[in-house]
């Protein structure tokens, strides 16, 4: 319900009616002063009145003074919030009602007219709490109606009331017109009905506000609602039991005590001072220990009383907030009821706390919490930043491997489609010429042509070997197992191949696995002098595993040969390359490449 400034932070929307803070302070204090004077003036009369006990007088005086005092405190602590002024006015109106106990005809008549004065202010106060503003048109109509009833309709009753009827020594009603008119009863009933309807409407407004309120908001409203509920119940039970023998007075006491507590409840809801400060003290102790990101969030949320709190870490590069995993966090929209509070350290923006706007009410607590958490948040910001960067590096490495694989495949294709075809045609051409020449042709020419043809054949054989080494076509066409089968076929050493069914995998993975096996086999043949090689391919638990084991000399240098370059490739794909080579125990090369499918 708070409409915050459009940049979504805790700015108080200055709703003071155009005056400066000092001026409004003066007005409130003066009004409260008038209230106190008025109280001093009327209370003695009230005490002397026939049908009022001392208890009632004390109750009335205490309640009114509490409203005045609490209203002043509230206004001094929250000058931009009208609640303070309204509470003072309630107190003023409260004592104005007691003017009817005075002995001067003028004051008595005024008091008779103002006998419902506090009602209008109470309605306004309750509906406007805790922002001090009436935000919807319905609310404004309701409060307007309450004021109209209190100051417009109720005073009209004065024309019917004749106090001299009951008490000859009573000051007369100066505005008496129709004493004892039957209209009086009607009028009173109508007023009663209007009062009940307005009260019910106020209750409905409160109920809806409670139901749509967030956690922090409810904590603000709770004291007032609770007190009002208890007081209201007390009053109702008292009325119900009034004409029975079941000691209704205790309920009246309940009502009166709650009514006196009410201004304090308003004050507590408005200030939330004690609750907040205790939370900060506890937080400071807990920040001594190392906290994970989610722990910190929980502690801050508890200290601020808002479980919907989100912590965003500031990434200067991207100019926005990211969460603990490095993913972007969107700022809350203006009408979502949530705001961002920035956490700065040494002039740098470190983090942002996204929380319910109601938390802004307790500025001191908010500032204390953000300051306390600043260092911890800074550390976590760095962690989040590094994670985000690592994520980018990771992604780019995988892209590079994919690009390299594709490049090799493309070159093989180009060789195949371009160069090889051309050479074959050339070889055919040369042989055709030799053929044309016939057996009777020039011996030298025939020799030249023969040499030429053999040269081209050699070139073709070399090209084939090159293309195969680059990226064997069968790998693209038939997958890893087929390519390894073909590779092993061409290996002079006896190789046993052990496969479990393997689905087609993305090209970078198949290519890398193939190259690992090819390189391992080359090493085996070059160095190990092995008699037996065993190659296994398995796909299990979302991971492709190729292993090459030989019974050769062992003692291979894991950092030597092409296996080192392949290790980088394997790691770029999130995999692992392990080489175990003990002297005289053979060599085992294992590559695991994770693949989650799709």
């Amino acid at each position: 319900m708070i409409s915050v400034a459009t940049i979504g932070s805790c700015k108080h929307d200055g709703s003071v009616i155009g005056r400066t803070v000092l001026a409004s302070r003066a007005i409130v204090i003066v009004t409260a002063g008038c209230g106190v004077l008025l109280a001093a003036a009327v209370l003695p009369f009230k005490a002397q009145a026939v049908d009022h006990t001392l208890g009632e007088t004390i109750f009335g005086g205490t309640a009114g003074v509490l409203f005045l005092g609490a209203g002043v405190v509230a206004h001094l602590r929250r000058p931009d919030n009208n609640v303070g002024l309204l509470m003072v006015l309630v107190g003023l109106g409260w004592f104005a009602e007691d003017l009817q106990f005075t002995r001067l005809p003028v004051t008595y008549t005024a008091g008779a007219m103002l006998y419902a004065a506090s009602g209008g202010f109470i309605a306004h106060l309750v509906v406007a709490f805790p922002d001090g503003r009436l935000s919807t048109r319905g609310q404004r109509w309701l409060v307007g109606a309450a004021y109209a009833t209190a100051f417009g309709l109720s005073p009209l009753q004065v024309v019917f009331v004749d106090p001299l009827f009951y008490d000859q020594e009573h000051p007369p009603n100066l505005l008496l017109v129709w004493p004892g008119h039957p209209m009086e009863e009607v009028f009173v009933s109508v007023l009663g009905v209007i009062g009940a309807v307005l009260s019910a409407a106020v209750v409905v407004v409160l109920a809806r506000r409670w139901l749509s309120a967030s956690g922090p908001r409810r904590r603000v409203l709770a004291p007032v609602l609770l007190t009002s509920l208890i007081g209201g119940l007390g009053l109702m039970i008292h009325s119900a039991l009034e004409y029975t023998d079941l000691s209704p007075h205790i309920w009246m006491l309940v009502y009166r005590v709650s009514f006196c507590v009410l201004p304090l409840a308003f004050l507590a809801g408005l200030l939330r001072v004690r609750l907040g400060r205790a939370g900060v003290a506890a937080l400071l102790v807990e920040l001594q220990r190392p906290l994970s990101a989610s722990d910190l969030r929980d502690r801050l949320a508890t200290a601020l009383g808002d479980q919907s709190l989100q912590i965003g870490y500031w990434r200067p590069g991207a100019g926005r907030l990211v969460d603990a995993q490095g993913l972007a966090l969107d700022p809350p929209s203006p009408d979502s009821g949530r705001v961002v509070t920035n956490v700065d350290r040494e002039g740098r923006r470190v983090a942002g706390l996204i929380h319910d706007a109601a938390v802004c009410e307790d500025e001191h607590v908010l500032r204390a919490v953000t300051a306390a958490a600043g260092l911890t948040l800074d550390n976590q910001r760095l962690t989040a930043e590094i994670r985000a960067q690592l994520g980018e590096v990771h992604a780019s490495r995988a892209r590079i491997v994919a690009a390299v694989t594709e490049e090799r495949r493309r070159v093989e294709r180009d060789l195949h489609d371009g160069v090889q075809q051309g050479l074959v045609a050339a070889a055919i051409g040369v042989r055709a010429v030799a053929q044309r020449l016939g057996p009777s042709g020039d011996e030298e020419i025939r020799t030249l042509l023969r040499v030429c043809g053999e040269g081209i054949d050699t070139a073709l054989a070399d090209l084939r070997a090159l293309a195969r080494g680059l990226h064997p076509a069968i790998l693209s066409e038939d997958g890893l197992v087929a390519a390894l089968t073909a590779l092993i076929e061409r290996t002079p050493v006896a190789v046993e191949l052990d496969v479990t069914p393997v689905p087609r995998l993305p090209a970078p993975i198949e290519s890398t696995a193939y190259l690992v096996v090819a390189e391992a086999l080359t090493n085996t043949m070059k160095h190990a002098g092995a008699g037996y090689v065993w190659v296994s391919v398995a796909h299990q638990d979302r991971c492709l595993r190729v292993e090459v084991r030989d019974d050769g000399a062992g003692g291979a240098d894991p950092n030597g040969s092409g296996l080192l370059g392949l290790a980088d490739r394997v790691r770029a794909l999130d995999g692992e390359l392990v080489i175990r080579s003990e002297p005289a125990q053979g060599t085992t090369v294992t590559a695991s490449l994770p693949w989650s499918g799709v």
Partner: protein
Amino acid sequence: MTIRVVLADDAVLIRTAIGALLRQYDFHIVAEAGDRRSLWEAIVATEPDVAIVDVRMPPNNRLDGLEAALEIRSAYPGIGTLVLSQYLESRYLTTLLGENARGVGYLLKERVSGANTFVDALNRVAAGGCAIDPEVVSLMLASRRRDDPLHRLTAREREVLALMAEGRSNQAIAQRLRLTPKTVESHISSIFLGLDLPPEPDNHRRVLAVLAYLRHPTDREQSQ
């Protein structure tokens, strides 16, 4: 009688070169095709004696030629298919041969430039025989385990075995190795005995048996 040939390769350069070569040897090129679909149309339209098909062709440029050859073999068993490939894989050989070795060939494209070899293979395939590229055969013969029975064969027997695997008839083998047909036959029986294979009188089945045997170890390990 001139042999009628359909020539399918997506490289115009190759088609031209092979075409010129074949015309020198009195083959009749009845149609040319650059992709799978036009190959099929040409076969249907002309029903040649033999089709020369490149393995890699449009539209997919993967194994379209091989698949087209299989289609032709099943729909027109009378038409010989000679498959040319720029690289040889024993795996594709098995796929191509399938159940029978009648009227089929698998050659490395380079082989075309050795005119005599090529023409001889083409004649064999057109006549319903079988022509497997010697390089594929030697590849399969070479990759052997230590305890392989092939080691028990004599060098001469291995030569005979290789030629058998290429799909040549006893006559062709005898001619090639300058032996009498009788000698060739006795070599062949001892080969089959030595490898523990049942004798196959039929030429075509013989090729299959030998090739199957040669591929056997790798086949066994593949649980595909």
